[in-house]
């Protein structure tokens, strides 16, 4: 075992030859955070006493779900043959929603550890990130984790990895993040095989932002990788996309607690603090340069995050609306991809139309709003962005189904994704059935190993935002994994289905669906509301309609009796208290025309059974 380094290389003065920048590509649950913890311990940057599980995952949600949302970078010393090296481990988000952030993290590295669970094999998301890493010409170190598990099959999966990336199965390292076995060998191999960073120390400073985190005490902490030149404290820096100039209040490295340094030089990874309070002023992918001596060309690859999925988010208690606004404003500081604007719904009152990168992003945001800000929320069914062209040539972008135009529609374009599904071969049939039912078109199918198959489909994004992932998991006993990437827009035969309660449209239930599925949606939603809405003093028709054409109809029969027979022995108090309780309940009712609907009915109707958006930590 290599000894812990006796000395550390001083940041800002480190020879790029002695720097290794790497990331870990892994599927959720394949043990990335645990492996990172062992590295922190082994290199001595975190002592055993202050070690806590999954040190790098700072948010509660991250730790609980075992997923990384925000990446970070840690500098670790490691000694090989008497020479101390500086290893920068850049933690990447593991989910498809954050592909862009992943790609920026990868761009900050020269190598990647491909970490695969020795009991499960590679998963779809890992494949996607591996692909990205290879596109970035990263040196890949294949590693099988969890070899301590009784179910581990390192030979089988080493073969699978060798097939994928070339090389011999024997080159695949075997480690256990849990016990620490093989971690030292891995660190040695990182030093030996990952190329050192190369840059021009004398050129104008160029640093790429690969992460930007809001900290309530310090403002925005920006994580950068120096490409050329250097940055020093108190310098004035410039963001190349916005030309905004800030003073560098603090510059340093994380190991893993922030340590201020005299600067950062070529190839180094560290953080910047400028006192900026909003992550939008420090965007992932942007290039930081020196304001006095600016670089002429920004680094390639910067783009603004575009929301892919929209959902209306409403407080269950209407009086929480100002709190929701405040919470979103705060969350925006740390989440550059979150977009929102006020929206009013007949059924749900005042809320916000929010845009997300994907389903997991949506779920994380709603969960953070509920947990960190103590709000009770209801989210409408997620919707994608439609580009509608009218007969008169007018073009409309629709992010909320209730805004779908009513006039003569010429074409509707909807976002399409390329989905990759990995699963044991026994499930190919059910997966194909599921994808075809969701308007999927198969691209290809190939065997990864003896019994594992990769299926690729193009699918409308709208078809997978609802409950596709849950269906996929349940139909494959949890074995299938899914990844998807945007694949442009395609024309769809789409219609808007509205829900009418006693003739009044209930906006929260409008949906844009394929023509062939409109009837089924109408029957489903009217049937559901019939069960959920209590009887009123009058009959209430519930209709689903496309334009003025009714496609499904249910009705709630009028309530005929609502009177207590007597007041027992003059117990008026009991009756009055019952009335007062009912009155309280009435306050929580939403009025649609004259129909009183308990908010719970809308909530129950909006949450389909098992509809849990995005990927959860699966067991």
């Amino acid at each position, binding site marked *: 075992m290599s000894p812990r380094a006796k000395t550390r290389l001083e940041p800002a003065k480190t020879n790029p030859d002695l720097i290794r920048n790497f990331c870990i590509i892994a599927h959720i649950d394949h043990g990335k955070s645990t492996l990172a913890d062992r590295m922190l311990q082994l290199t001595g940057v975190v002592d055993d006493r202050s070690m806590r599980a999954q040190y790098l995952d700072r948010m509660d949600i991250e730790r609980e779900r075992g997923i990384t949302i925000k990446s970070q970078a840690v500098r670790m010393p490691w000694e090989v043959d008497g020479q101390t090296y500086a290893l920068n481990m850049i933690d990447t988000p593991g989910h498809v929603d954050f592909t862009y952030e992943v790609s920026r993290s990868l761009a900050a590295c020269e190598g990647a550890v491909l970490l695969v669970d020795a009991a499960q094999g590679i998963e779809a998301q890992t494949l996607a990130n591996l692909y990205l890493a290879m596109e970035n010409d990263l040196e890949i170190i294949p590693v099988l984790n969890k070899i301590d598990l009784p179910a581990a099959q390192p030979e089988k999966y080493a073969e699978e990895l060798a097939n994928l990336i070339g090389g011999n199965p024997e080159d695949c390292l075997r480690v256990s993040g849990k016990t620490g076995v093989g971690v030292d060998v891995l660190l040695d191999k990182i030093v030996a095989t990952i190329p050192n960073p190369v840059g021009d120390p004398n050129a104008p400073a160029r640093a790429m932002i690969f992460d930007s985190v809001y900290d309530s005490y310090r403002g925005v902490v920006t994580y950068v990788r120096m490409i050329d030149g250097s940055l020093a404290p108190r310098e004035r820096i410039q963001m190349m996309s916005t030309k905004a100039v800030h003073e560098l209040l603090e510059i340093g490295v994380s190991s893993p607690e922030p340590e201020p340094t005299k600067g950062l030089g070529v190839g180094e990874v560290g953080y910047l603090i400028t006192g900026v309070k909003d992550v939008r002023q420090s965007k992932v992918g942007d290039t930081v340069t020196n304001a006095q001596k600016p670089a002429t060309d920004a680094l390639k690859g910067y783009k603004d995050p575009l929301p892919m999925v929209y959902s209306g988010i409403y407080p269950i208690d209407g009086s929480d609306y100002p709190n929701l606004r405040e919470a979103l404003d705060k969350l925006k500081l740390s989440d550059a991809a979150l977009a929102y604007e006020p929206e009013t719904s007949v059924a749900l009152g005042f809320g916000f139309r929010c845009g997300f990168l994907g389903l997991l992003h949506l779920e994380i945001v709603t969960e953070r709003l509920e947990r960190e800000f103590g709000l009770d929320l209801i989210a409408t069914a997620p919707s994608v962005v439609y580009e509608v062209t009218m007969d008169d040539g007018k073009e409309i972008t629709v992010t909320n189904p209730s805004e779908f135009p009513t006039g003569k529609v010429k074409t509707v374009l909807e976002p399409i994704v390329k989905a990759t599904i990995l699963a044991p071969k026994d499930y190919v049939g059910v997966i194909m059935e599921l994808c075809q039912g969701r308007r999927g078109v198969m691209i290809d199918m190939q065997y990864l190993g003896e019994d594992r198959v990769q299926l690729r489909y193009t699918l409308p994004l709208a078809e997978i935002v609802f409950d596709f992932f849950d269906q996929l998991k349940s139909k494959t006993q949890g074995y299938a994994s899914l990844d998807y990437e945007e694949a442009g827009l395609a024309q769809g035969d789409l219609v808007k289905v509205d829900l009418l309660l006693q003739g009044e449209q209930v906006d929260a239930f409008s949906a844009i669906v394929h023509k062939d599925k409109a009837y089924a949606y109408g029957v489903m939603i009217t049937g559901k509301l019939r069960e959920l809405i209590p009887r009123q003093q*009058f009959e209430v028709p519930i209709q689903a309609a496309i334009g003025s054409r009714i496609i499904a109809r249910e009705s709630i029969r009028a*309530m*005929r009796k609502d*009177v207590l*027979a007597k007041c027992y022995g003059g117990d008026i108090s009991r009756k009055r208290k019952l009335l007062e309780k009912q009155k309280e309940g009435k306050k929580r009712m939403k009025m649609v025309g004259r129909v009183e609907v308990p908010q719970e009915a809308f909530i129950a109707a909006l949450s389909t059974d098992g509809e849990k958006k995005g990927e959860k930590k699966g067991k």
Partner: protein
Amino acid sequence: MAALPSGDTAPLDGALPASVLDGADTRTLHAYLHIPFCRVRCGYCDFNTYTSSELRGVTHESFLEDLSREIDLSRKVSAAADLPKRELRSVFFGGGTPTQLEAQQLGAVLNKLTNGYPLASGAEVTTEANPDNVDLDYFETLAAAGFTRVSVGMQSAVPSVLAVLDRTHNPQNVALAVKAAKQAGLQTSVDLIYGTPGESIDQWRESLEAAIELDVDHISAYSLIVEPGTKLAQQIKNGKVAQPDEDEQADKYEIADQLLGQAGFAWYEVSNWSKSLATRSAHNLAYWRSNDWWGFGPGAHSHIGGVRWWNVKHPATYAEKLNSGNSPALARETLSGDTRLTERILLELRIAEGLDIETVKSLNPSAAKVISQAIADELVEPVAAIKGRLVLTLRGRLLADSLVRDLIG
């Protein structure tokens, strides 16, 4: 059995606040006496009543002494509060089964009560009666003691329905009891229950026709309410009997109103019909008009000038309280102005003379919109509403609670 409401602590001596004097002259005085004895407990019943094995040593005789102490205490409390001396307009013996007591015993209680609270002339004095307990002699004794009215627990004329209710009386005894009561010169009323699990529409019709056939002065018809904690609720939960259907209950109410109307009975409260103005139950109306009444006996509720209180439930606890010289009240509440208005709306809306619209407006300034909608929905009589009173239509009687919720805003 039904839980008592929660309230404030009642003072040990039962003393009333000065606020009860406000408008005391305008309120009539009534008395309710709760006789907590039953031979058996019926499956649907959650009233405050006990069979002999549940009484923890309380006997009929000891109970009558306790009741007598509470009457004395109430006199003291009334005097201490400076309440004006008012004659009793009605007395009602309910239960339980008051006729588990001897007629002389009931007469003695009435005598004790009227010694402290004189009866107004023409006052109504009623007892509930189990048809199995009574005969001509019994009623004659009551009449001699000052009783004027008897309410017979008929419930149904159909043996299978009575069986589901656990009623053990012989249906034929109802007719005998009513006949005897009339012979003794008492006004007569029968109670019916509709919507018992398994009761068909025709069976309900049969019960109504039987009740009409008795030629009583007054009929009450209550829909069966399955109270939590009763044997019936348990049987429904276990699937042994079917849950009463609310729509069918509504049908049965409409049938009752139709048949009773044809037989010359007019409704004067949601669940009560009377042959004439004179035979309406004055005691029942006192509740709906928020008048004052003392409720004596375990679990009894009282209302004096905006103060409502209720006694401890068990006869043994009731006895202990009174024996140590304390009020048997468990808790009470002093109603605020708005609460009294709310109560008036929910109570007065139920009676045939209806509710003054000004009362509603003083609580809910935007009542006009609700009332106009209620007229459109045929819940209230339009002409009466235009003249300033809310009087329920047949449809409105069935939906009275919904309308009350709308009215109080």
